[in-house]
């Protein structure tokens, strides 16, 4: 491949594209604090990989097979981050911590992202609704 970095006098050349989807709703269709998670994602990607770009909200849908194929519509923010494969491997632990935290704390069925041409998902098990606690009757 032509050495465009040298030809253009660029100091950084990254050939691996990481695309992350930040959802606007949780698995039960309730809104989440998307702005917080976008900010967190940019902070993590900036720290680990040197930069990232968040695009305006789009419209998306995800099929939750654990809920009988229920379609969950939301307005995700897509974040792009250019990096290198070796850097990605080196920083995998930090990225993993963030992706799993977002999935858990934002109550997602899955966190989806793309590395170059591969779509990847981290799936989270469906939590059973907590059964109502029996009321303790006061004994007289």
């Amino acid at each position, binding site marked *: 491949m032509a050495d465009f970095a040298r030809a253009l006098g660029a100091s950084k050349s990254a050939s691996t594209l990481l695309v992350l989807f930040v959802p606007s709703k949780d698995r039960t269709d309730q809104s989440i604090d998307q702005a917080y998670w976008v900010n967190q994602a940019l902070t993590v990607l900036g720290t680990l990989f040197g930069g990232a770009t968040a695009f305006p909200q789009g419209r998306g849908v995800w099929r939750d097979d654990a809920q009988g194929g229920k379609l969950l519509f939301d307005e995700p923010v897509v974040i792009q981050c250019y990096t290198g494969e070796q850097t*990605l491997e080196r920083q995998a632990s930090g990225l993993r911590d963030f992706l799993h935290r977002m999935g858990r704390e934002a109550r997602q069925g899955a*966190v989806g992202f793309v*590395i*170059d*041409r*591969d*779509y*990847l998902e981290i799936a989270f098990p469906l939590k059973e609704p907590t059964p109502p606690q029996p009321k303790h009757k006061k004994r007289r």
Partner: protein
Amino acid sequence: MAKNIRRIAGRLGAKVVTRLPDVGGGAFGAARLAAVVETLRRRLVPGQGLRAGRPTDPSWIHHPKVPMSEATERLLTRLAEQASTAGRKVSPMQLAAQILEDALTGIPVSKHPQ
């Protein structure tokens, strides 16, 4: 394309769901098609000898007949015309071969057939 995608997925605790097609719709699809064409142009080298003929890829030693609809052939012809330049002509079937090879690299093939 990430070479160790399975290893990276494992380290992220993720599963590779699917490989995206090399060419899709819209502006991103157009950009990917441009990459396919650029790869093809680099692969094609002029033939040797007195009657060199059309530039080709030396590794293409078989010329099997591939069935296709008229619509597919028309589309390949149109795309090949767009991919051709004054200095390098790309034929519809050369473009088809490149797209086919790209598609096949994305399909996992079991080493141990059942």
